[in-house]
């Protein structure tokens, strides 16, 4: 099937493994938050202290930063930049590319050393790459996951909510 017509379906088992991996990463680095995004900016899993209200916007912006850096890389005749580091006064963000499709992001404060984040993120990207490859390989149909009447219900919801 044409890849554009398939959705990415993350099964419960793989989602749990990703959560566990991100929890370890936050715990072991002493970071505040870890996010796994797909390159379109959608947050797949997030782990960390408390609930962030801004997580959706954060995902969109981080993916934007990465996509933009990839275009810069191309102009420099690099394939892509595989890691990005943004340093703030209180908090820092370390971003790493997993395969060509995913982005792992760790938010941490000045109590954590960047070297540790780099090493442990590398370890996590290897683990996540294996899990995400399994996600990519599995072929479940939409109806199997969502049920056959999903589309009709969705259309009704769209009509109900999208109006002046």
């Amino acid at each position, binding site marked *: 099937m044409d890849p554009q017509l398939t959705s990415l379906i993350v099964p419960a088992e793989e989602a749990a493994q990703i959560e566990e991996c991100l929890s370890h990463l936050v715990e072991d680095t002493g970071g505040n938050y870890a996010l796994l995004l797909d390159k379109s900016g959608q947050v797949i899993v997030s782990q960390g202290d408390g609930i962030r209200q801004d997580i959706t916007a954060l995902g969109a912006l981080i993916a934007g930063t990465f996509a933009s850096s990839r275009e810069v890389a191309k102009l420099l005749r690099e394939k892509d930049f595989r890691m990005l580091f943004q340093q703030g006064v209180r908090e820092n963000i370390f971003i790493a590319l997993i395969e060509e499709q995913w982005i792992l992001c760790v938010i941490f404060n000045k109590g954590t050393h960047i070297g540790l984040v780099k090493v442990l993120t590398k370890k996590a990207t290897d683990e996540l790459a294996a899990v995400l490859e399994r996600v990519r390989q599995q072929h479940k149909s939409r109806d199997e996951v969502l049920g056959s009447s999903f589309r009709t219900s969705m259309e009704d*919801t769209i009509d109900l909510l999208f109006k002046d």
Partner: protein
Amino acid sequence: MALINVAAREIHCKIVYYGPGMCGKTTNLQYIHESVSPDVKGDLLSIATETERTLFFDFLPLDLGKVRGFQTRFHLYTVPGQVLYERTRVAVLNGSDGVVFVADSQKEKLEENIKSLKELAMNITRQNKKFQEFPIVLQYNKRDMPNALPVAVMDRYLNGMNWTRHEAIATTGVGVFDTLKSISRLVISKL
């Protein structure tokens, strides 16, 4: 590529508003943001220049609530329209599930519309997607302008693929939600 998270029971879809500079992409998002129920919308995020031209993108998350047990979210983006930002458009288009092509109906803008649509086709093809099969909805915006081209003329130059198209005046909201409904339905049908 839409994302279905079975454990969290969430579905995310990305819709991008594309088109030449000043055609009204941001205005579409602003109107949607002003008009939809507060339960549905998130914050409208704009990365713009000091003169309010889009520099990177605008972003509006819409949460449709639970549909058959799945929390469903549409993420709307606009690209910067100015010719200069071609590579930025490529970046924003990445991973989109559907595109609204907003065309400016003014006759002086026809050539820009055609160029922008060609660029869209090229960018989608470069992402290894088939342009002919990609979910696209057309919007002919600024229908209230005195120099607006007849719809039939715009169809001839822009709608060779026979996409669903809507006439719109985004500043007052005419056609904005019809366009959003069309592209949402199209994206859902391809999940």
